[in-house]
């Protein structure tokens, strides 16, 4: 199995090999992996890779995937042009 060719986060082009390497280096929760690999920071904000990464973390830590926390969801949920926010008349 070539883990380099298994894409986990397609927004930021992160492979299964990258995830496993991060886990082995000691980054064992979603927030840490996000900070080092940028998973969940692209256009879909983690909606696509969330489940796959959760499962990998669970497998590595030998816990139930339901107990693995994902990253903190922050506004905005999709890309907004900064100029449009700056020009917004809204208070």
């Amino acid at each position, binding site marked *: 199995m070539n883990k380099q060719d298994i894409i986990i986060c*397609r927004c930021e082009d992160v492979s299964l090999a990258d995830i496993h390497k991060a886990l082995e280096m000691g980054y064992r929760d979603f927030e840490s992996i996000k900070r080092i690999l940028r998973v969940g920071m692209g256009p879909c904000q983690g909606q696509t890779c969330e489940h796959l990464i959760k499962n990998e973390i669970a497998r590595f830590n030998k816990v139930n995937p339901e107990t693995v926390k994902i990253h903190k969801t922050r506004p905005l949920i999709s890309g*907004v042009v900064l100029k449009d*926010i700056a020009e917004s008349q*809204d208070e």
Partner: protein
Amino acid sequence: MIKRDLVIVGGGPAGLCAAKVALDAGMSVTLVERFNRLGGQLIKQTHKFFGSESQYAKTRGYDIAEILIKELDGYGDLEVLLEATCVGLYPDKVLTIYQDNHYFKYQGKSVIIATGASEKVLAFENNDLPGIYGAGAVQTLMNIYGIKPGSEVVMVGSGNIGLIVSYQLIQAGIKVKCLVEAASKIGGYLVHASKLKRLGVDILMNTTIKRAIGKEKLEKIVTVKLDENWQEIKNTETEIKTDALCISVGLSPLHQLMSMAGAKMLDVSELGGLVPKKTCDYETTIEHVYACGDVTGIEEASSAMVEGRIAGLMAAKHLGFKHPKAFELEETLNNQLCVLRQGPCGEKIRCGLKKAGEIND
């Protein structure tokens, strides 16, 4: 900032039904929809629905969308925003909306989140090759845009979406080479699976996709057999030539708005992932913020419609708006939900709701 009695995010079956009931109760309603038309997933569902008459059984999905949209005709207090994405939700019920390069704010006295779900993906070698799609995406391409996804297709997953989209591919003149399912049981209704069988589609059980092969785009896939512990069985790899692969392995609730607003979320695998903790009134842990439809747990459009009506009714009730038939409607709707979730097909959702603490038995 524009203030409304109710802002609904998502114009699918749940959002449309919530709007109707809330309008009947006299609320001013804004309905925010990301796509260029209302109806959500219904508009690409060319098959006739199962279930009961009260949820439009025997009617095709896109016709149900038409019915629900028409029901909103003539309400002066309804505003519909199309191609508008709600990009933020805050605890004071302020919503930020992005439409046509304009960024603006709404505030609802109450808010209903009916954002639905997105497709889950699978991890296998070369899973980023062009020609690999989600089954829902294929249904959108075919039934909304009239575009063929390929000349032949392998489907992964035997849930109702996988089965129904396979059938619709055949209707569109595309060869479905086979359907692979990792479990030992068909996930969706047997009547759909039988239909495929009769048309000569091979259904390969205990099988999963191992690898995709192709230079510029998908050319071949490799499948592998699984044992009862979901481990690959050696020497069972099979190569299949195909230019399209359809992944239908479940949906995941679009939880982001509620997560960012700070609503308490629960992780329940049977419901598809992160769902908001809610009361039997469909209210989340943020007062006057409700959730209904697939975003509260993956089910069918039929239950999304009923949940939407309940959420609309409760949003109105908790702000003192009186629906003319509030009492009888509440009872009828709750009964309808129970009926929809009966039997072996409702087992997964019942199990999920039990885990979430929403039902007891």
